[in-house]
């Protein structure tokens, strides 16, 4: 029977579980995000570097292609920690661009349309709401970070000799852990910006500014005062230090691993606090 003829009846059937309900939010958000042409273009562009890396791995593992090109090239074409660090650096930049494009549309519209009471009057807590919004970014950013990274790692395992994986398994683990930390930070910054600023354009600019301006400011402080502690305000530098440690590469000067982890932890806590303050079903004026 046609819906308009049937009339309204109360739903009496089975209900879904908590996590299925939670995943409804990212599903709808992905659907809306990928209706934007710019988002599709940027995601496609973000996949170019992994493709180039795949070509690099292929060439690196086929010595017959560069046999006559000198000994120095062999070192340059090696698939080592430096290779994965470069890959992570490039993809982390795309991560920020994607988050700046997608992030502002996640919370800001809910705040400007006063939609939070609708979410929180359903069986969802504030933590669930943040987790669902974060899942949207984690899913999207995973597409251009650790997922292609893992494919590259798998390619290298397949093409290199049998002892390579045993000697370098920590590259794969470091890749996943390093990107997880980065995605967490980028997502938190994107969500906090979106919660703090209702205008999407400004929220997007804030996300970009957060990373690029802070990196510039850290360099300025280090340069002007001839110190190294200025890097503590640069989350990208802190993340890079952690990646180096995870991939077993020498840690750059400026911050040690514990300071870097402390900086990142502090940043996540501060962003969490912003979300806690802003995401309330009703605003209470003291």
């Amino acid at each position, binding site marked *: 029977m046609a*819906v*308009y003829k*049937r*009339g*309204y*009846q*109360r*739903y*009496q*059937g*089975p*209900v*879904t579980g908590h996590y299925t*309900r939670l995943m*409804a*939010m990212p599903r*709808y958000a992905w659907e*809306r995000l990928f209706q934007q042409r710019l988002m599709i273009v940027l995601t496609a562009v973000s996949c170019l570097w992994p493709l180039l890396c795949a070509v690099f791995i292929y060439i690196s593992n086929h010595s017959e292609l560069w046999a006559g090109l000198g000994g120095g090239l062999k070192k340059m074409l090696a698939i080592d920690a430096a290779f994965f660090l470069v890959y992570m650096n490039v993809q982390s930049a795309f991560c920020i661009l994607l988050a700046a494009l997608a992030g502002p549309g996640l919370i800001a*519209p*809910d705040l400007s*349309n*006063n*939609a939070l*009471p*609708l*979410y*929180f*009057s*359903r*069986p*969802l*807590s504030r933590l669930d709401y943040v987790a669902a919004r974060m899942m949207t970014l984690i899913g999207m950013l995973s597409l251009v970070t650790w997922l292609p990274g893992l494919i590259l790692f798998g390619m290298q395992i397949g093409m290199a000799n049998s002892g390579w994986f045993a000697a370098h398994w920590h590259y794969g683990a470091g890749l996943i852990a390093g990107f997880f930390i980065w995605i967490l930070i980028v997502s938190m910054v994107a969500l906090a910006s979106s919660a703090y600023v209702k205008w999407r354009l400004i929220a997007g600019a804030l996300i970009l500014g957060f990373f690029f301006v802070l990196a510039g400011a850290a360099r300025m402080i280090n340069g002007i005062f001839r110190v190294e502690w200025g890097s503590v305000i640069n989350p990208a530098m802190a993340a890079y230090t952690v990646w180096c440690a995870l991939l077993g590469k020498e840690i750059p000067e400026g911050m040690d691993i514990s300071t870097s982890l402390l900086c990142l932890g502090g940043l996540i806590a501060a962003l969490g606090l912003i979300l806690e303050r802003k995401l*309330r*079903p*009703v605003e*209470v*004026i*003291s």
Partner: protein
Amino acid sequence: MPAPVIELDKLRVKLGRREILLGISCRLGLSGSGKAIGLVGPHGAGKATLIQTLLGFHLPLSGSARVLGFDCHRNPRAVRERVGYMPESDSFIASMTAVSFLRLMGELSGLPAEAALEKAHETLFHVGLGEARYRPVGTYSLGMKQMAKLAQAIVHGPELVILDEPTNGLDPAARQRMLRLIREMKEQHGMNIVLCSHLLPDVEEVCDEVVIMKEGLIVHHADLEAERRSNRRFVELEVSGNDLNLASTLHQHGADGVSEGGGRWRIVLPLDFEIAGLWKVLAAEGLNVRKLTHRRDTLEEIFLKAVGHIRQTPGETAAEEEVSAHGSL
């Protein structure tokens, strides 16, 4: 045994530095009874805070609030699974079509994706937005947005629907439609309703019981149907003709009448005795009715008495039914 729809036990809620609810206790409605509870009170009485506490938005300072038998603070998820909420202010996702919006809300309430889509269409037709269901909600008029808000509150078929000022900003026709939908929700679909409104005629029209709040306290809790009946019993009458037998005739019908002389009577009618019945009795006695005043407390009077604006029901507001001096039945 059905649980009360709302059960408050010395509930105190503090927002910021101000205590809004000052230890209120009551038991309202019965789950599954399909009754509507009206929540009225002047601005700042604590109605919105009470609703928000029932939804688990605020933590009680002390005491407890239970909805359909579930503690709002300890088990908010169980409460929210059974409740639909229509907020007072505009709340929607502007860029979404009404169908997508309702589908998302349905899925968040636990409906499987296919069922949510089906219910979204069904509910939008039900509230009169069938033709506009593929338009973004942000493009709707105020009245349509109110209907969309109502639709999202009932899309998952909740046991209890909390409506905060549902007729705000509606034209008379849309208001009537909204009230009809609310009546249908309780009468045909067995939903319990909590209606928070400052428009007393709306509450009077659809609610079965009413709670009047003032300054964080419940100052009156009335069964509206009983109030209506009890107030219908008092009649002031003025007749011409021989009224000597009227007292005994009224007594035969279970009514008590006292003559005040000059054809003036005060009559107390039994619960099942309608005003139309009195006209028939008077006609049978051959009396000409000069004046018949049927006093009936409106919710407005009950409200004003409860919040202390008037001390008693004034005679000026009585509903009067008058006939001409020589009128007869």
